[in-house]
């Protein structure tokens, strides 16, 4: 049975991991390569790096960061933040990313989704949607949640899927960094609307929040940052909790046993 995934997100700027609240007030959270390797060892299922660098110089440093992270990972790595062209995406794949996450650029030119999918496959294209509550609907925001687009989140998810996205990374702006729980109703609506996997993001603060988003929220994966960065919750402990409640999880206990018979040569 397909497992639900736990994904650790590293927001990076100038080669360092940072973490904010509601997309603001960034604080330092360490070396991305160290953090990623630690999560891998602890049993995380995937790693996402979202670069929040603003300048061209620090964007160039991103490739080096990705290379350093990828060199130590044998699990999937997604990179997002500032990818505007197929050339930007190619640089990330060349540096070792398995998938790219598109956000503002996909909103500005949706054809970019199909362009990257045609060259690298849909499995390599994640469309990230930042959504915020307003008048009973969830509206999509661009440019790190600063620019309203007026688009409905569910409709945009459908379009992204139709254009070739392989997964949707859905972040609730209202919940980001608040640790008050994922927006399960938003997640469930988007998950029901598209045939591709949906990764829920924003608001993880407790074990119960993950359980909620995998059940009521119908999420295929859940992404979090702070709860993992500051070691408030062990990944193995969280997986055991979820597995005991019927959520299929990749077992962190699946150690590779020593073969009684060495491989025949």
């Amino acid at each position, binding site marked *: 049975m397909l497992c639900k995934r736990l994904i650790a997100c590293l927001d990076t700027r100038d080669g360092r991991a940072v973490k904010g609240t509601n997309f603001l007030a960034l604080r330092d959270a360490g070396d991305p390569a160290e953090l990623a390797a630690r999560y891998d060892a602890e049993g995380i299922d995937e790693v996402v790096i979202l670069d929040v660098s603003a300048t061209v110089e620090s964007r160039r440093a991103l490739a080096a960061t990705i290379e350093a992270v990828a060199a130590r990972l044998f699990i999937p790595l997604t990179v997002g933040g500032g990818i505007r062209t197929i050339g930007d995406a190619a640089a990330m794949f060349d540096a070792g990313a398995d998938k790219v996450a598109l956000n503002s650029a996909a909103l500005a030119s949706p054809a970019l989704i199909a362009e990257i999918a045609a060259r690298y*496959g849909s499995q390599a294209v994640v469309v990230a949607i930042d959504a915020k509550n307003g008048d009973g609907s969830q509206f999509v925001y661009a440019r790190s949640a600063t620019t309203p687009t007026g688009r409905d989140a569910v409709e945009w998810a459908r379009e992204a899927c139709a254009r070739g996205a392989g997964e949707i990374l859905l972040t609730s702006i209202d919940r980001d960094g608040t640790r008050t729980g994922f927006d399960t109703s938003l997640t469930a609506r988007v998950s029901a609307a598209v045939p591709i996997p949906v990764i829920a993001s924003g608001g993880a603060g407790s074990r119960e929040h993950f359980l909620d988003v995998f059940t009521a929220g119908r999420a*295929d994966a859940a992404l979090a940052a702070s709860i993992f960065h500051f070691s408030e919750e062990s990944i193995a402990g969280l997986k055991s909790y979820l597995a005991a409640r019927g959520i299929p999880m990749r077992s962190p206990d699946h150690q590779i046993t020593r073969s009684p018979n060495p491989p025949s040569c």
Partner: protein
Amino acid sequence: MKGLRATGAEPRVVRAPAELTAATGVVVPGVGHFDATRSLGAEWRAAVRDAMGRGVPLLGICLGMQWLYAGSDEAPDVDGLGIFDGRVRRLTGAVKLPHVGWNSLDAVSASSLLDGVDAGAEAYFTHSYAAPVGADTVASTEHGDVFASVVERGVVAGMQFHPEKSGQVGLRLLKNWVASHAL
């Protein structure tokens, strides 16, 4: 490449069919659409078949495994190598596609490829099309349908998941393949 290096092998990328004559093992990786295998034309096919004829082990990963079948519904006009029986078809059932994430490998028949890998250990998949379970299936996986996730016949093997992205389980599978052929 990184995964193979981690097993102690020394992989290199070949760009011309003639380079396969020096290979002691051949890996056909690949993600994407079956149509992409169209670029593996007659010369590549002949070179791969020639290597197999010399007993050189061949490992197909993901799309590379699918290429070892007769063909795929994803690109019906493109022929595969036809080494394994059956045809690659789109997964069915009330499940999300692409099949993305960690799913369990259920042993179907004995193989040194699975040495030291716990029953039910998970590997990382990302695909929508898959091959049927057949006589050459070593491990199967379920997502809507039950499909072949590890196959082996003689010197030819295939893995539908990405061993290079499947943590310690994947590295062990790669290591088993390298070790079983003394590469």
